[in-house]
């Protein structure tokens, strides 16, 4: 079986006003269907840039990215992005209209069916009672759940999540993580998840790609993450191992 998303030898560079920054260098990985694939690394390892490139917002300097065998050239609704920022919801639309918006814009569904599907997914993230509210009346956690519902309602090939819970308070973050896993149990969607939190990576992912910073290179890939559990302390041990891996060179370099 060929992978759903195949990233091979991708180097990403972006220009600032005076220099060209290499964000990632020859990064390769592949995501299979129903993977919860986590890109983990300290800031500056190019994980968000990598996600944006998969989203089609920037072109790799070298290397190839394919989704379902097609090369990624531009943004598209087969890869739904979920951002960290709360302002990703359209403030001029209600919660329901926000979830319906991509379905209608991409002409995926006629209005009536789009509304049914939007309501169904809002039900899944338990936001059925705020469907007619405007986003500014919601809490941060609710906004992120609407964004997740909006992404999932499109039933894309892959969900791209860019630290979606990083701006939430600790309690809400845990609830949202649990909910995401619950949703995954129900629909087994494929998700590419970016985070800088080791604990979150272990909790969310079944595979983790560790990236080192400046420029971002692949350091390790961790498989079968779902085997560890917090009860017998194996999750804690993995967290320690990952931590040591990530900070091994910084300790010697400084």
């Amino acid at each position: 079986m060929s992978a759903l998303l195949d990233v091979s030898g991708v180097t990403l560079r972006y220009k600032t006003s005076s220099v060209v920054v290499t964000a990632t260098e020859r990064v390769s990985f592949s995501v299979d269907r129903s993977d919860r694939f986590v890109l983990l690394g300290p800031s500056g390892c190019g994980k968000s840039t990598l996600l944006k490139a998969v989203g089609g917002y920037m072109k790799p300097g070298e290397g190839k990215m394919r989704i379902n065998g097609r090369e990624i050239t531009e943004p598209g609704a087969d890869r739904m992005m979920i951002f960290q920022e709360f302002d990703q919801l359209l403030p001029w639309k209600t919660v329901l209209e926000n979830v319906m918006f991509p379905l209608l814009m991409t002409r995926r569904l006629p209005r009536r069916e789009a509304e049914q599907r939007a309501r169904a997914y809002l039900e899944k993230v338990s936001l059925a009672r705020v469907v007619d509210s405007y986003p500014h009346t919601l809490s941060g956690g609710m906004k992120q759940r609407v964004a997740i519902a909006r992404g999932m309602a499109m039933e894309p090939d892959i969900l791209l999540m860019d630290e979606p819970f990083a701006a939430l308070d600790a309690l809400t973050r845990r609830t949202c993580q649990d909910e995401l896993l619950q949703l995954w149990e129900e629909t087994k969607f494929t998700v590419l998840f970016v985070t800088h939190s080791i604990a979150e990576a272990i909790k969310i992912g079944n595979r983790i790609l560790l990236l080192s910073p400046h420029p971002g290179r692949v350091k390790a890939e961790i498989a079968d993450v779902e085997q560890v559990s917090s009860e017998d302390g194996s999750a804690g041990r993995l967290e320690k191992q990952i931590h040591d891996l990530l900070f091994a060179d910084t300790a010697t370099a400084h």
Partner: protein
Amino acid sequence: MGEARILLRGDAAVMAGDPAEVERRLSMLELLWNDGFVRKAAIILFLAVVWEAYGSFLDNPLLFPTFHDTIVTMFDKVKDGTIPLRAWASLKVLFMGYGAGILLAAIFTILAISTRIGTDFLETMTAMFNPLPAIALLPLALIWFGLGNGSLVFVLIHSVLWPVALNTHSGFKSVSNTLRMVGRNYGLRGLPYVARILIPAAFGSILTGLKIGWAFAWRTLIAAELVFGVSSGQGGLGWFIFENRNLLDIPAVFAGLLTVIVIGLIVENLIFRTIERNTVQKWGTQS
């Protein structure tokens, strides 16, 4: 290693019989005073009283008629149809100029966001022409378009175009990167992208531009009418003011000025406020 102790405290249950004051209805007076319309009406009423007092104190209707005289004259002129006719003549020209100005502003800003040279063009043009008072172009306009609505519409376009284009463009530029990426994620580009993402996201700034454009247009129009007044036998409010000054009918001059103010107030407080309440305030993008 010990265990932490949890002490259950039933304070909430004990006090259930004696509910705390969670909500209190505001008194009638507080409710009224919370209404912006009431507060503004009170200010206007106060100004009218000051006007009336000063007018009676001066007792010289040729210099400064009282509020009462002005209202009576205004009422007469409204009843005999002069003021409505003149106001309508002004508003007709205004709508033409305002509409054309907005259309041009839309074209300019869409060019400005789609190409870099378009941005440079808009920025240079607004920097050059925005500070130029529209009325200063009137003598030229009179030579080019003659005595008539053509000249008025020309100066109105000039007074509307630049503030609307400037505000719309800065509104577009300040649309957050996240929202732009969201729009592109759904494959939106070109005009649908502008219409579905940029315009609603920048609506606050656009509305500000429209308000400034409206105020500029209205004052430019009245001033232009004062300068050359009548066109095709039917002058507007500016001409009405000028005419009555020549007849030394000062209460009528005041009535004309008051009409200009009242129309301005109505547009600002009814039309623009209603739009604001149903858009940017409902969306929480502006308080």
